[in-house]
């Protein structure tokens, strides 16, 4: 459903976390937030800008880029499509494609700062095809809708189905690239005990976002874009482990895993629960007999 201009003018537009990287330059220059909505929560808009940025800050401190695997419901859509086929039809993907999200991040941050509008939301977000799509009433909005549908069909439906990977997350999402930066300061990570590793590459095959390379496995690490979903740990027959930065590899990995998972699940249920509750309330509001 498209968001009518009335809702944008009145500040009732719910805030989307994907826009956060694009807010930085305009907010630094003028303190203006280039997204329709309200800074503080209102009766019509509990998901205000300050609330959503607050939630994002808290969750990013706790889980870092695990936001993408435990909290992002957009990623859940492509994970669903990736789970349908038994085997991947396309198995080899060029590792250089991992750089695309960084290029898109740079592009949308700079352009949003110059144009004072959330460029990604207006022109590139694949999920606009199934969420707040624009009403087509001009050539411009028809082009926008065409881009949204093409990106959704290609990156969220077809490619995950063919590759069994989260291709939109791995090869397109600028917010995911932005979250990768927080992996540098987050305490939790996944490591491989090189003394036990047999280089079977099962971990590499299982990773949904191509966050492992032969070189990184040799070094016993994941790449910066690891979203800590734990698929590699589950697939490993030897000793891929949860790890805390600064400690010896494979020191109390089960304790590290539990500390991470309890935090991540607390965050996921809190965020997902509030969205589910709001969605149910909206649906109940529209019941015909109400």
């Amino acid at each position, binding site marked *: 459903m498209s968001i*009518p*201009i*009335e809702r*944008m*003018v*009145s*500040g009732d537009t719910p805030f989307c976390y994907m826009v956060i990287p694009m807010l930085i330059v*305009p*907010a630094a220059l*003028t*303190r*203006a*937030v*280039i*997204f*329709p*909505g*309200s*800074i*503080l*929560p209102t009766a019509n808009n509990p998901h205000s*800008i*300050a*609330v959503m*940025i*607050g*939630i994002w*800050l*808290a*969750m990013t*401190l*706790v889980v870092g880029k695990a936001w993408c695997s435990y909290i992002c419901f957009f990623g859940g859509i492509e994970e669903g499509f990736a789970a349908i086929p038994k085997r991947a039809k396309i198995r080899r993907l060029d590792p250089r494609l991992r750089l695309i999200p960084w290029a898109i991040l740079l592009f949308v941050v700079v352009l949003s700062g*110059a*144009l*004072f*509008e959330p460029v990604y939301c207006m022109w590139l977000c694949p999920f606009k095809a199934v969420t707040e799509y624009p009403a087509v*009433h*001009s050539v411009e909005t028809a082009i926008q809708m065409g881009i949204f549908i093409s990106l959704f069909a290609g990156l969220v439906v077809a490619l995950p189905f063919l590759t069994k990977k989260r291709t939109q997350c791995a090869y397109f999402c600028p917010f995911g690239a932005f979250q990768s930066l927080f992996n540098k300061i987050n*305490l*939790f990570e996944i490591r491989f005990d090189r003394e036990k590793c047999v280089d079977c590459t099962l971990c590499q095959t299982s990773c949904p976002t191509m966050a492992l390379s032969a070189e990184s496995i040799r070094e016993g690490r994941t790449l910066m874009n690891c979203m800590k979903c734990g698929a590699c740990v589950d697939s490993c027959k030897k000793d891929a482990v949860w790890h*805390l*930065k*600064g*400690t*010896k590899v494979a*020191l*109390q990995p089960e*304790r*590290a895993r539990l*500390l*991470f998972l*309890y*935090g*991540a699940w*607390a*965050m996921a249920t*809190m965020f997902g629960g509030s969205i589910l509750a709001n969605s149910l309330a909206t649906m109940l509001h529209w019941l015909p007999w109400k």
Partner: protein
Amino acid sequence: MRVRIVAVLAYACAAVTLVVAACVPFVLMGVFTRTVAHAGLHVDAAYTGGTVARTLARNGYQVVVYQPFQPHALQQVDPFVQIAFKPVAALPDHVTEEIDLDGDGQADVRVSFHVPADRHARPAGSVVALNGKYASFTMPGDSSFSRLMVQSDDAVVVRVPLNGAQRR
């Protein structure tokens, strides 16, 4: 010894993240929200209409005139002035007003519209510019952030585009 101290510190910090996670819905979300709210951020005037210039009292309702919106260097929204008629419940069925937008004592535009009974419907009406600084338009017609006539919250919001020469 150093390895052991680092390990103890790391696991202590990890345990703290668990406490943080548990505290988010009860305490920390509010703290973070208030911190962001006190950072002095504001929603861009292209969406909000900007700051209020003056409020004109009418018979039971108010006409709120905003400061002209001027876009940032490459921003794609054209300059406009926002006017809000509120509360909707106090408006007559048909409103016709000549309004001084720039505060020089002379009326700049004549705004007229029907107030729809359905609070989600868009008002039909027109804006007639009384001088060359502003642009005329009628609704229903093409709406944009700089040219619109809508019901929003408890107001009828009208945005009058400034003519090209009035750009900063």
